[in-house]
């Protein structure tokens, strides 16, 4: 009570996390923490559980066992009097406000224009005055290079443009944590660069904690300070990007990197 402990809490903490789909165990007793301001990239073969981890943090999947803490606060479950209890939707929604996510398929709302997409949650969830939300949305559109598109409909935009709007939409909520799941995988190769450039800029100019899943290894090297290599739902190896991409210790990491880097 005397001490302010918020400074010491990690942004994200997984404690004994289990996740199964039916009897298929995807994550088994997973423990890891992400500190505030960290940019952590998750790598690993298909099916190793990377997307599942991000979706658990965004509460898009229900935990099978264990706990996730966001800035020290339990996200969906808590331990009370020795019992694991499920937390209410209202609580989840409060914690969720600190987290933003950008999806592989953009998921912009087609019934709204670009700027309406961006101000929707600030106005209706954070109750920011509309004029203020619009000013901020315009700043963000400018930042992602789409200042002239505010009245466009999402479907009139290219994939790369839609994804940049989606990034602006997530940033408009001022998230403490940003989750990026293969955000360039649905894009044509020649427009991957414009989206990654925007994300590099976000990484440079903010202190948002980022949890990133990507196959763009150069991007991972540029923005992240930690890389976690997953296989079958557990962490095989953890290192800085320099070490992970040049001299990994584990054979499984070397095999995986050889396969994705194509040599």
């Amino acid at each position, binding site marked *: 009570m005397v001490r302010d402990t918020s400074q010491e809490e990690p942004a994200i903490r997984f404690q004994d996390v289990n996740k199964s789909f039916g009897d298929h165990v995807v994550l088994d007793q997973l423990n890891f923490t992400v500190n505030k301001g960290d940019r952590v990239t998750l790598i690993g073969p298909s099916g190793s559980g990377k997307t599942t981890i991000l979706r658990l943090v965004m509460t898009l999947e229900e935990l099978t066992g264990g706990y996730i803490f966001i800035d020290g606060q339990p996200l969906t479950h808590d331990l009370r009097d020795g019992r694991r209890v499920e937390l209410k939707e209202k609580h989840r929604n409060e914690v969720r406000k600190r987290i933003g996510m950008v999806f592989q398929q953009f998921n912009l709302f087609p*019934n709204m224009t670009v700027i309406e997409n961006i101000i929707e949650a600030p106005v*209706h969830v954070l109750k920011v005055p509309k004029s203020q939300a619009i000013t901020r949305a315009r700043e963000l559109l400018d930042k992602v290079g789409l200042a002239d598109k505010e009245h466009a409909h999402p479907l009139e935009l290219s994939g790369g443009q839609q994804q940049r709007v989606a990034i602006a939409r997530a940033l408009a909520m001022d998230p403490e944590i940003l989750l990026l799941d293969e955000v360039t995988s649905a894009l044509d190769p020649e427009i991957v660069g414009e989206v990654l450039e925007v994300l590099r800029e976000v990484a440079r100019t903010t202190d948002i904690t980022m949890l990133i899943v990507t196959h763009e290894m150069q991007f991972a090297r540029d923005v992240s300070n930690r890389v976690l290599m997953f296989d079958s739902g557990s962490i095989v190896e953890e290192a800085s990007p320099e070490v992970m991409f040049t001299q990994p210790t584990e054979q499984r990491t070397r095999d995986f990197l050889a396969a994705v880097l194509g040599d």
Partner: protein
Amino acid sequence: MSEHLIKLRDAWPQILDGIGITLVLTVGGAALALVVAIALGLLARFDNILLRGTARVFIEFFRGTSLVVQLFWLYFVLPRFGVELSAIAVGIFALGLNYGAYGAEVVRGSLNSVPAGQWEATTALSLSRTQRMWRVIFPQAWALMIPSLTNLLIQLLKGTAIVSIIAMADLTFMIDKLRQDTDTFFAYTVGLLLYFALASLLTLGMNALEIRAKHKLGRGDSLRSALSFSSSASRAGKGVA
């Protein structure tokens, strides 16, 4: 034949009254049906077994019992419980509940076919359940449900003819009166044409709604340009730009 046309001209004001009643039944029934369809369609998607179960029983009951029997029940049985409704109210209630139950399935199906990614994006933005439904999901489902709702509306229009059996002077009733003054072939042909004209009007209106709903989702022309003859020119222009 020309005598028949004179009879038709004489009967025309009455036929117009009949069309008026048919339209009141159609519009009233459709409005109630839409409310019932949305309410039941939403309830049928709840996790809560009690709410979902209630909705399902209601839907199956009104789909499974015939409109005629529902009509008779409301008209002849309900008064015994002290609830006496006018014939037109009975007609609107029966049509609204019956077609609303069919519509509920359309609403539920359309909500389910909005892509999962849209629901997930609303969660990622922390929208409340109500905001999620009314600001994001329903407007998209609406465009999907209009074609099926149009079918139901046309069926409802035709269903109003049944209401003439509880002594309502609707279009079918007036056509039957015309038959007594002319002949079967003439009167029922007029009837066919008039119902067809009404159905066409309703379909046109619904198509306009659909174009508007799709345009709001960024698909297809605006209603204005779809209606104007210059639409093809402006579309070609857009392609170049």
